[in-house]
C-alpha cells in the first residue's frame, strides 16, 4: 500500500505529493535565502502547510498538522549509564550485563561521567541552556526487559532545556533552494535504555537480552513545531549529523542508536489542537516521513468522515506503509514518577562557579566542554560554500550522504582541478553512479585518489571532458585500473594534431553537404551537428572548441 496522496493548499495553488523524496509540503515561494546564523525563535508553526481532504470544499476543511518528536539517541560510550558493563552492538545475548543491569537487589547506580559530558556537549551544540543542577527520577512500569521495574530518567529537572535545531528544507523548481527552518528543543534528558524482548510466537516464549539494558540514552524532546513528514525527516537528519559530528552518538537508526517517536495531531488553524496519537517503531528516516504523512492523512480522513481520533499509541508497519493501533498499550499508564534516591543531584560547573579546590576528576566544567566542541554541520556547510564557492544545496548533499564529504575533501586534497569542477564531478557523476547502483560511498569502486587523477588529466587537457566520462565509466567497471592506464589503453588522449583534425573536419563537411547547406542558409545551430560528428569520429578525443573553430574557419572561407 502506497502512501496516500496528500493535497497541499497554499496561496491559491495546489500541489500533490506522494512521497518525501519527490515532493514537498512547503511553500515554494521565494526563499529568503539561507542565513548562516541560527535563526532563533523562528517557529515553523507560523508557516505550516495546510491540508485538505481529497474532496476539498470551499473555504473550510483546511487542516494543519502538528508534529512533535521524541528522539532517543544512544550515547556512544564504553560503558553503560550507571554501571561498568561494556556497550557493544550485536554482542552475544546477555554477555554485557552487570549485577546492576540485572537489578540484583542491593545494587546501586553510579553515574558515568562520559554520558554526562556527552549530554552537555549535545546540549551546547543544540543551543540549550545547560542546567547546573539536574535530577534523576524513576519511571515505573512492568515490562520483561526492564529488570528493575523502573527506568531512571530525568523527568523533573533535565540536564539541558530550551534549545533549537535549525535545518534546511529543499524547495524550488529543482529542489535547489534551501529554506531554513527551526524547531525548538524542549529538553534533553539522560536516561537508561531498556533490554530487548524477543518474542518466540511458535513456543509462546519471550526471550530477554539485557545487553542493552542500562545503556545511556539522550532523550531529545522537540516542541511540536513540525508540520509534515519531510520537515520531521529533515530535522532528524540534521540532528543525526550533529550527533555524529559531536561523537556523542553513532546515531545509526538501523542499529537502533537513534529511535524516533512522533506525536501527531491535526486541527483547523485558529482552533485548539486536536487529539494526538503517538507513532512508534520508526526505524529509518524514510519511514519516519512516510509514517507521519500517513498518520496525518488518516486523522484527516477519520475526522472528515465523522470519526474521532483516539489518544493512542500506534505502530508504523513499514511493509504495509500504514500505522496501526498498538492494542497492548491501551490501558492508561501512570508511571508513578519518584525521585531516584540513590543518586545525588547532578551538579555541573562553569568557569565562574568552579570551586578553586575542585578535583578535576570529580567535577564537570561546562565551559571546558564548550571549548572542545567540533565543527558543526551548519558551519561545515558555510565553510564549503565560502572555501569552494559551491552552492548551499550542494553542501547539504555533501553532508547528507554518509562519507561523501570526506571523499570530496580527499579528492580536493589530491587534485589540481578547480573546486567547482570537483564539486560537479563528485555530486553529479560520482554520486549519480552510487545512486544508480544503490551503493554507499564506502562501497564505491572508485577511490578519491583515482578520481583526483582523472580530474588532473582533465585539468591538464590531456583528455576531453567527454573522454573523462568514458574513463570514469571504465574506472567504475574495472576496479584497480588507474585513469592513466585506461586513457592509454583506449587511446583517449586529446587530439593535439591540428592538421589531422582539419583533415577530419574537411572530410566530414564533404560527407554531409546538406548540413553545410543548412548552415550557409542561416541556421547557425546546424554546426553542432557537424561538431558532434567530428567528435564521434575522434572517439571524443578532440576538443570541441577547437573543432568549432576549424569548422567556422572552413565555412567562412
Amino acid at each position, binding site marked *: 500500500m502506497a502512501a496516500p496522496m496528500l493535497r497541499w493548499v497554499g496561496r491559491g495553488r495546489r500541489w500533490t505529493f506522494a512521497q518525501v523524496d519527490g515532493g514537498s509540503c512547503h511553500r515554494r515561494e521565494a526563499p529568503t535565502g539561507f542565513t548562516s546564523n541560527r535563526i532563533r525563535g523562528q517557529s515553523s508553526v507560523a508557516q505550516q502547510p495546510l491540508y485538505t481532504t481529497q474532496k476539498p470544499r470551499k473555504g473550510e476543511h483546511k487542516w494543519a498538522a502538528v508534529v512533535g518528536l521524541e528522539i532517543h539517541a544512544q550515547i556512544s560510550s564504553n560503558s553503560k549509564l550507571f554501571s561498568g558493563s561494556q556497550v557493544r552492538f550485536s554482542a552475544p545475548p546477555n554477555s554485557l550485563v552487570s*549485577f546492576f543491569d*540485572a*537489578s*540484583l*537487589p*542491593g*545494587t*546501586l*547506580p*553510579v*553515574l558515568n561521567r562520559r554520558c554526562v559530558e556527552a549530554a552537555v556537549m549535545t546540549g551546547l551544540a543544540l543551543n540549550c541552556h545547560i542546567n547546573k543542577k539536574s535530577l534523576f527520577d*524513576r519511571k*515505573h512500569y*512492568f515490562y*520483561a526487559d526492564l*529488570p*528493575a*521495574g*523502573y527506568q531512571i530518567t530525568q523527568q523533573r529537572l533535565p540536564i539541558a532545556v530550551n534549545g533549537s535545531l535549525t535545518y534546511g528544507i529543499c524547495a524550488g523548481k529543482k529542489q535547489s533552494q534551501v529554506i531554513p527552518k527551526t524547531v525548538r528543543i524542549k529538553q534533553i534528558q539522560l536516561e537508561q535504555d531498556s533490554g530487548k524482548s524477543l518474542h518466540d510466537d511458535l513456543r509462546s516464549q*519471550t526471550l*530477554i537480552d539485557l545487553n542493552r539494558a542500562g545503556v545511556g540514552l539522550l532523550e531529545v524532546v522537540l516542541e511540536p513545531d513540525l508540520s509534515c513528514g519531510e520537515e520531521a525527516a529533515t530535522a532528524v537528519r540534521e540532528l543525526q549529523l550533529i550527533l555524529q559530528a559531536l561523537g556523542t552518538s553513532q546515531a545509526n537508526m538501523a542499529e537502533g542508536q537513534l529511535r524516533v517517536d512522533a506525536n501527531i495531531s491535526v486541527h483547523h488553524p485558529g482552533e485548539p489542537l486536536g487529539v494526538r496519537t503517538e507513532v512508534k517503531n520508526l526505524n529509518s528516516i524514510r519511514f519516519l516521513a512516510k509514517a507521519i504523512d500517513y498518520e496525518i492523512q488518516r486523522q484527516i480522513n477519520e475526522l472528515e468522515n465523522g470519526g474521532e481520533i483516539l489518544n493512542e499509541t500506534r505502530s508504523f508497519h513499514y511493509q504495509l506503509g500504514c500505522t496501526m493501533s498498538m492494542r497492548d498499550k491501551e490501558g492508561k499508564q*501512570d*508511571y*508513578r*514518577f*519518584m525521585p531516584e*534516591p*540513590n*543518586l*545525588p543531584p547532578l551538579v555541573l560547573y562553569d568557569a565562574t562557579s568552579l570551586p578553586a579546590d575542585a578535583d578535576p576528576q*570529580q567535577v564537570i566544567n561546562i565551559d571546558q566542554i564548550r571549548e572542545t566542541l567540533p565543527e558543526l554541520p551548519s558551519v561545515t556547510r558555510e565553510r564549503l560554500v565560502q572555501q569552494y564557492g559551491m552552492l548551499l544545496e550542494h553542501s547539504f548533499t555533501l553532508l547528507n550522504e554518509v562519507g561523501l564529504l570526506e571523499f570530496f575533501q580527499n579528492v580536493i586534497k589530491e587534485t589540481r582541478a578547480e573546486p567547482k569542477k570537483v564539486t560537479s564531478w563528485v555530486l553529479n557523476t560520482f554520486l549519480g553512479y552510487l545512486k544508480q547502483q544503490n551503493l554507499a560511498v564506502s562501497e564505491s569502486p572508485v577511490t578519491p585518489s583515482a578520481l583526483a587523477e582523472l580530474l588532473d588529466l582533465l585539468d591538464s587537457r590531456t583528455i576531453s571532458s567527454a573522454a573523462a566520462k568514458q574513463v570514469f565509466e571504465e574506472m567504475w567497471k574495472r576496479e584497480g585500473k588507474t585513469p592513466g592506464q585506461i586513457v592509454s589503453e583506449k587511446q583517449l588522449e586529446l587530439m593535439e594534431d591540428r592538421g589531422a583534425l582539419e583533415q577530419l573536419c574537411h572530410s566530414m563537411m564533404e560527407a554531409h553537404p546538406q548540413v553545410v547547406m543548412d548552415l550557409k542558409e542561416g541556421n547557425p545551430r546546424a554546426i553542432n551537428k557537424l561538431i558532434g560528428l567530428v567528435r564521434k569520429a575522434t572517439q571524443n578525443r578532440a576538443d570541441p572548441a577547437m573543432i568549432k573553430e576549424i569548422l567556422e574557419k572552413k565555412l567562412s572561407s
Partner: protein
Amino acid sequence: MLGRTLREVSAALKQGQITPTELCQKCLSLIKKTKFLNAYITVSEEVALKQAEESEQRYKNGQSLGDLDGIPVAVKDNFSTSGIETTCASNMLKGYIPPYNATVVQKLLDQGALLMGKTNLDEFAMGSGSTDGVFGPVKNPWSYSKQYREKRKQNPHSKNEDSDWLITGGSSGGSAAAVSAFTCYAALGSDTGGSTRNPAAHCGLVGFKPSYGLVSRHGLIPLVNSMDVPGILTRCVDDAAIVLGALAGPDPKDSTTVHDPINKPFMLPSLADVSKLCIGIPKEYLVPELSSEVRSLWSKAADLFESGGAKVLEVSLPHTSYSIVCYHVLCTSEVASNMARFDGLQYGHRCDIDVSTEAMYAATRREGFNDVVRGRILSGNFFLLKENYENYFVKAQKVRRLIANDFVNAFNSGVDVLLTPTTLSEAVPYLEFIKEDNRTRSAQDDIFTQAVNMAGLPAVSIPVALSNQGLPIGLQFIGRAFCDQQLLTVAKWFEKQVQFPVIQLQELMDYCSAVLENEKLASVSLK
C-alpha cells in the same frame, strides 16, 4: 570467653589465650544450642570455620589484620553475601544466592572477621518486632535470663509459661538476639526507622545507627534508600566504634557516601568529665504512652549528666509528631518502587503460572510477599499516582525537611547531643505484641527513632538498666551529622556511669539443654 566484649576477646586472640578456630567452634556450638531463639536464618558454619583457619594462620605468622581478625560476627539477612543465601526473610528470595558481597560485608571479611551466619528479621525489614518474617519470630534471649525469670517468679500474676517469651524488637531482631545470646561479638543490622536501635534497647545492647552517607549501602537490600543505613549491634560502645572504623568511608559503588575525610580509626577517648558538654532533652519526646520506668530512667540520665558538670537543656523539635505519618508516605512510596524488581524473572521466587507475563508477575508477587509488604506496596503506589503525588509525596518531603530542620535548629542552639528514650517500654511478650498489626506496632515503636533517619543523623541506643521485670531499657543519644565519633564518646562516658548488668544466661543454657533433650526424644520417637 563468650561473654566478653569484642575488644576483650580481640586482646585474648592476640595474646594467644584462644585461637580463632576455638572461638569459632564455641560460637557455632552456642548457635546450635540457641537455635530455638530463631536468631539465624542461615548458619554459615563451613565458611566461618574456613575463615577461622585462615585467621589462625595469620595469627601464627604474626600478620593479624587488626582488631576484627578472628572475631565471629553475624549479618542481617538483608545484606548480600556472596555464595550465601540471602532471603530478607521472604518467600520471594528463598534460595537466592547473591554473586557479590555487600560493601560492609566485604569490609568485615577484609578485616578478618568470621561470618557465622545470616540473621532473622521482619520480611524485607518491614516491622518492629522481628515477628513478621517467613522463618518465624525471633525470641528475645532475655526471656530466658536469670534476671527476668527470678522477677517473674516473684510476681504471683505471671504465668510461668514458655509461650510467654518476649519479642526482640526489630527489624534487626535476629542480629540483636545473636549478639545478646553470645553467639557472636558484633552483628550488622540495618536501620531505616529504628530497626537497629529498637532491638538493641530490648536486648540490652549498644545499637548504633551511623550518619547517612558515612557507611556504604551497596549490597544492603533496600527498604527506604534515602533513610537506610547499615547499623551496628555490639555489647559495648567501644566495640561499636571498632566496627564503625572498619565500615566507614566512601564507596565508589554508593554515590550517597560522602568523600570528606573523617578521623579514622574511631578511637574513642575516655572523657574525664562532661563539663564542656551540652545535652538537649527534646520536650516533644515526653509522650503519654511513655512507661513511667523509662521516663524515670531518662530523667535520671539527665541528672547524671548534670551532676557530671554538663549543661542540660530542654529543647524543642516541634515537628516530631508529624514524623510517623510522614514516614509512612515516604517509606511506602520507596517500598513500592524498590519492590518492583521482584517480578520472578531474573531471580528469586517464580510462580508456576505462565499464561501471560502479567499473570506470572501477579501470582509471583502474591506468593512471594507477605501481607505487610503487599500492603506497603499498595499504599506506596497510591501515593505515587500522578493525581496524588503532590498531595502526599511532595508534602511528606516538605515535612521531612521541617523535621530535619528541627534538629539543625536544636544543634545550632548549642546542644552537642540529644538524649531521648529509645522505646516506650521494655520488650513485651510475643502474644501481647501480635495483638496489634504490624503497621500499628511500627508506628508506635518507631516514635523516638524515626525522625533521626529523616534527618540522616547518627544515633545510638545504650542499655541503661533493668526494669522492674528484669528486662533491659535503653536510652538514645542523637548527634550532629557526621559527628559520630563525638556521639559515641559521650555514649561511652554514659555507659561507664550506668554499668548495665550482663545478661545471665545460665537459665537459657539449662533451657537449651532441656529443649535439646526434647528434640532428641522427639526425633527418636519419630523413628
